[in-house]
């Protein structure tokens, strides 16, 4: 009887440990001092086999109608998982989309996805590009049929889920797991915050300017507050993109787009939801001289930001400290060797 009691207690303790936010591996997921992730890991606990499957899928053009476009086509590991040098991305048959590819990092802290927040959960984000006619032009049901015909994927799905079935749920959750591993928290900025190194003089001044002028929307440590803002971009007469308003149908959301992260900004050009700015200098010029007034303009931008030429150099120097070479060159993130 006592042995039974001890065994039950042992399992009860294990259950409690598992219940308290452990994402599935023994390493702590959130960097020290960061807010708690929004993603519910209890519904999709990270496991090496599922991450591997997700990575295979992420880099596999099989997800597209004509097997030419993979997730990595627009989210390249060499460019902080965005589409460098492309204002708008092209999908199958060279079709052009209407928005700039966002950089994928720190996704566990996002409560919605896409520039207009159309997607409410990371697990279902992949549905949007997979089914969009100008991106991958496929259907999830057909992707599953293709996966079921592959001996390799049949084996990998079984290893991940211990189930011979290949389902939409399994496919999407595996992609999520790989994407959740893309955490960027080791830039020079992070080292400074941990007390491991110091800014040089320009960077230090730039950080002060950043805190005074940018941090209300690009809040540390994620460098986004996750909100939708109208940052004064002149509406594009061809794309006619109303941003968040498309989703909420509310005029108060006209021209508002999600505040993107500034992490790895050195490598995520071109900038803005339509990629209209190729260089950081153009971005700073926009914020100091180019704000377009409209009823929904962010309250933080109603008063113009003033920066001298020297201050622009300093602010840029600080922004470059957000480059995380450990993230950019992590071999676990790049093309899988098959």
């Amino acid at each position, binding site marked *: *009887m006592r042995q039974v009691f001890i065994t039950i207690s042992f399992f009860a303790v294990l259950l409690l440990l598992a219940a308290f936010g452990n994402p599935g591996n023994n390493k702590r997921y959130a960097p020290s001092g960061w807010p708690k992730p929004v993603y*519910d890991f209890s*519904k*999709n606990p990270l496991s090496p086999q599922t991450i591997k499957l997700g990575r295979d899928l992420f880099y596999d053009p099989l997800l597209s109608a004509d097997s030419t476009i993979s997730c990595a086509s627009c989210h390249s590991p060499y460019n902080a998982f965005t589409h460098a040098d492309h204002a708008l991305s092209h999908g199958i048959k060279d079709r052009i989309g209407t928005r700039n590819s966002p950089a994928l990092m720190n996704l566990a802290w996002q409560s919605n996805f896409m520039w207009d927040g*159309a*997607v*409410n*959960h*990371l*697990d*279902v984000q992949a*549905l*949007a590009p*997979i*089914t*969009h006619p100008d991106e991958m032009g496929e*259907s*999830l*049901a057909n*992707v*599953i049929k293709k996966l079921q015909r592959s001996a390799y994927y049949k084996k990998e799905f079984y290893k991940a889920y211990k189930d011979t079935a290949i*389902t*939409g*749920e*399994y*496919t*999407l*959750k595996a992609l*999520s797991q790989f994407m959740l591993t893309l955490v960027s928290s080791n830039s020079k900025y992070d080292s400074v915050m941990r007390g491991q190194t110091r800014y040089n003089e320009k960077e230090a001044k730039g950080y002060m300017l950043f805190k005074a002028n940018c941090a209300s929307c690009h809040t540390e440590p994620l460098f986004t507050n996750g909100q939708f803002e109208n940052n004064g971009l002149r509406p594009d007469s061809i794309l006619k993109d109303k941003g968040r308003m498309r*989703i909420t149908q509310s005029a108060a959301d006209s021209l508002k787009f999600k505040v993107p992260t500034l992490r790895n900004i050195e490598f995520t050009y071109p900038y803005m939801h339509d990629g209209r700015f190729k260089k950081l200098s153009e971005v700073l010029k926009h914020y100091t001289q180019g704000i377009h007034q409209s009823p929904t303009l962010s309250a933080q931008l109603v008063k113009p930001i003033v920066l001298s030429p020297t201050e622009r150099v300093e602010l840029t120097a600080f922004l470059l400290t957000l480059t995380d070479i450990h993230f950019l060159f992590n071999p676990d993130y790049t093309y899988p060797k098959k």
Partner: protein
Amino acid sequence: MRPKNQENKMLRGCISFCFLLLTAYNLASQTTSVRFQPHYNTSPLIYNDTLEYLYTNDSLKITSLRFYISNIKLYHQHKLVWSESKSFHLIDYTNSQPTALILNIPSAINYDTFSFDLGIDSITNTSGALGGDLDPSKAMYWAWQSGYINLKFEGYISHKGQPRQEFQFHLGGYKSPYNALRNVTLNCSKQKELVIDFDLMKLLAVSNSTHHIMSPCKEAMLMTDAATKAFSIQ
């Protein structure tokens, strides 16, 4: 420390008792089947061998019908007496006659009301990728804007000899002000086979001028309201 053979006896006793309980429970529950029978006005839609049309006449051709039923509950004299756990079912007429739902209702329970939601609740809508009937590969999930499609109804309609027009109704939406989830409550008597009629004419009667509803909106809510009145039990 109790002697070993006394411990064995206790263990055997426990196992036997559990087995008895299980058997008693199984004997005490009754499987009730629930089937939905779509109609167009009074004509029942019978799935035929052509495998293409659910219903055809000169003015109407239905090519697709699928909807979610969830949150099944039974009431007796206005009191809740039973509810189904993990209650999500996709009733799908697209490729074949859907199989009936099987509910394990304890036979001791009496009920006079059958209640269900037409569609998927908002918490499930924000829970990401789910499995079974909720799998996003079932073509009942909006890819461009997260959320389940509660009801898909497609076909062709022509009025008084005019060229026929395609209709496509994808009814959904879980967020205010376009929350299209609705409850359906029907009086019924306790029975082994429940057949719920569903009159599609009531949906077409409130169709908008373009005969297209493809996103959460006022028209989707209006048609869902009409759909709730389309269900009946004989």
